C-alpha cells in the first residue's frame, strides 16, 4: 500500500509461488554473472591488466625516449614509428593531443605496452577492434597485448582532453 500503513500481518505473509520462483531465478542469474567475471580471469583471454607502476611525466618521457632509440624504424607524419621485437616492452606516450609512437607489431606475438599520460586523462581506444582503456598521468599502465588480427589499426582518444581531443589519433600496424 504505497500511501498507507501496510495491512495487518504483512510481515508474516507468505511469498506467492510465482514471486518466489522469480526471485530464485534472478538470484541464480546474479551469482552466475559474478562467477563469470571471476572465471574469465582464469579461462578468458581478455582481461583488464592490473600491472601498474607509479611514475611521473618527466621520468616516463625519458624512459620512452630511451626505449624508442633502440627500435625506431622511421617517421610518419611527424610521428615516430617503432618496430619492437616480439615479447618486448614498448613505451607509448599519450599527450594533448597525440599518441606516440606508431607501432608495427606481428600477429600472434605478445607485446608489453607501457602507457602513461604527460598531462590529462586520455582514453586508449583501439579501432576497429574496439578495446578501450583509461590512461592516467603518473601511472604507467602495462597492457600486454597479443594481436589476433592483422592490418591497419588506429588508436583514438576517447577521454576528453581539451579542444584538440578529436585530433588525437595514433596508428598500429599488425603484420602477418
Amino acid at each position: 500500500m504505497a500511501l498507507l500503513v501496510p495491512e495487518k500481518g504483512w510481515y508474516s505473509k507468505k511469498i506467492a509461488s510465482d514471486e518466489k520462483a522469480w526471485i530464485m531465478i534472478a538470484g541464480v542469474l546474479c551469482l552466475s554473472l559474478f562467477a563469470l567475471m571471476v572465471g574469465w580471469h582464469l579461462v578468458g583471454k581478455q582481461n583488464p591488466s592490473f600491472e601498474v607502476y607509479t611514475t611521473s611525466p618527466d621520468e616516463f618521457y625519458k624512459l620512452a625516449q630511451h626505449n624508442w632509440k633502440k627500435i625506431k624504424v622511421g617517421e610518419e607524419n611527424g610521428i615516430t614509428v617503432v618496430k619492437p621485437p616480439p615479447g618486448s616492452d614498448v613505451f607509448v606516450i599519450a599527450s594533448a593531443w597525440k599518441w606516440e609512437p606508431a607501432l608495427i607489431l606481428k600477429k600472434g606475438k605478445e607485446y608489453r605496452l607501457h602507457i602513461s599520460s604527460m598531462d590529462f586523462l586520455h582514453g586508449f581506444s583501439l579501432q576497429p577492434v574496439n578495446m578501450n582503456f583509461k590512461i592516467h598521468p603518473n601511472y604507467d599502465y602495462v597492457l600486454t597485448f597479443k594481436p589476433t588480427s592483422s592490418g591497419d589499426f588506429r588508436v583514438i582518444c576517447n577521454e576528453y582532453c581539451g579542444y584538440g581531443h578529436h585530433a588525437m589519433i595514433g596508428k598500429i600496424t599488425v603484420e602477418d
Partner: protein
Amino acid sequence: MFTTCDITGFKIDKKVLPLIKANAVVSVVALLIAMVAALLVLLTRWQVVHLLPVDWYYRMLTLHGMVALVVWIVFWEMAGLYFGSTIVLNARQIAPKVGWVAFLLMVVGTTLVAWAVLTGHADVLFSSYIPLKAHPLYYLGIILFAVGALIVVGLFFANVIVAKKEKTYGDGPLPLFTFGLLVASILAVGTLLAGAFIFVPTFLWSLGIIETIDSSVYRLTFWGFGHSAQQVNVAAMISIWYLGSFLTVGGTSLNEKVSRVAFLLYLIGINLASAHHLLVDPVPSPAWKVVNTSYFMYLAVLASMIHAFAVPSSIESAQRRRGYTKGLFGWLKNVPWGNPAFSAIFLAIVGFGFIGGITGVINGMEQTNITVHNTIAIPGHFKGTVVIGTTLTFMGATYYLIPLIFRKKISGFAIAKIQPWIFAGGVVLLSAGLSILGYMGVPRRHWDITFSGGPFTYTFPPITDLFWVVAVLGGIIAFTGALIWILIVVVSVFFGKPVLSKADMQLTMSDMPPPAKEHHGFEAPGTFALTIIFMIAFLIFATINWGWLSMMWETR
C-alpha cells in the same frame, strides 16, 4: 495551518505547498535548458550537420550533463521529498524557512555553475576530471547546490521522525512510498558526502591552496558521488512506480515485505557503483573491481529484478481482482491507458528494465566494459536509465502534481495522453542508435569523429551513418515529447483552469480492488511471463557481448 484536500482527504500543511511548487517549477525550467543543450550537442555529433564550433560543443555538453542529470532531477526530487514526508503522512513541515534557505543555495549554486560554463570558465565536462581545471566558482556552485540538497534531505528525516512520533499516518511502518524515499534519502547522504570529499579539495586546488590531487583518487570519489546519485534516482523512481500503481489501479505489492527488503538491498550499493567507472583504469585491483562493480554479487541488481516483478504484479493482481482475468494479459488491456501518468510509468518500467537494466549490467561487468568504456554506448545506456526511467517517471508523476498540488486542470489533456508515448518512442530510438554506434567504437564526448587535423585518419564502418540517422531521429522525437510536456506543465500551472472539486480531476483515482480470494498457483502469471521474456532478452544480449569480447585481441 492545515487544509484538507477535498480530493484525496489528506491533511496538507499550507507551508509545504510553496516549497513543493518552487522546486518543481525550477526543475521544469532546468529540463527545458537541458533539452535544448541536448539537441545542440546531438546535431553537432551528427557530422552531416556538425552544428557547433569546438568550444561551444564542449560547453553545451558540460551544461547538458549538469542541468539534465543534476539540476532537473534533484530539484524534482526535492519537491518529491517534501511531498512524501508531509502530505502523504498528514504531517507538518518542520522548519519551512530552512527549506527556503536550501532552495536559495541550490538556485545560487546552479547559477554559478551555469555562469562558469556559459562564459567558457569550465570547459571540463560533467565529470571535471583532474587535471582539467575550471574556475573556482564552478566548484563552489556545485558545493552550494549539494549543501542545499543535503539540508532538504535532513528536513525529510526530521519530518518523518516527527510524523512517526505524532502518529500522523497511523500506527505502524511508513507507507511504502515514503519508505522508498527514506532509502533514497539515506543513499543521498552517502552520495553528497562523497561529493563533499571530492569537490571541497578540488575547489581548494582550483584556488591554488592544494597543490595536487591524484587523478585516480578523484575518479574514485567523484563517481562515489556521480554514480551513487543514480542509486538515489532509482530508489525515488521505483517509489513512484509503487505510488503510480496504487493511484491508478489501486495496486498493492503481492508481498510488501519483499518490496521493502528489495529497497533495503539498494543500501548495499551506497557507494560501490563508483567501480563501474574504474573497470579499465590502471589502479584498483581486479578483486576490488569485481566485488564493487557487482554490488557484492549483484545484490542491488537482484533488488531491481525483485521490483521488476513486484510493481507490475501489483497492477496485475489488482486488475485480476476486478475481474480482468482473461488469458495472460487481459489485465493489461484494461488498465487506464488514457491516464498519461499511468502510461508514463508503465513505459518507464519497461524501458528502464529492458534498455537501461540490461545494458547497465553488461557494461558494468569487468571484462565486457573493455568493449564499451567511453564509447557512445554509455550515453546510450543512460538514456535507458535516467531518461526513459527517471525522467519519464517524473513526467508521469507531475501529471498528478498539476491537479493535486497546483490545483489546475491539465491543459491539452488529449495531447498529454500521447506525450509519454512520443517521448518514450524517441528515447528508445536514441538509445538504440547511440548504443549500436558505441559497439562499433564511436567515442562519446568527441567533437569530430573524422579526426580533422590529426596525423592519421580513420573512418568508422559505413553502417554507422544509418545509426546516426536513427539516433538523431530519436533525439528529435524525444526533444519534441519533452517540449510538449514542458508546454503542458507551464500552460496548465500558469494559465490553466482551476480544479474546484473532484469532478475536475482528469486523471483516474482508483478505489481499492476487492480483496483477494484464496487461491492456489500463480498470483500474477502475466507478470511472470513478462519477467521470463526479460530474462531471455538479457541472456541473448549477454551472450552476444561476451562472444564478441572473446574474439578481440588478447590482453592481460
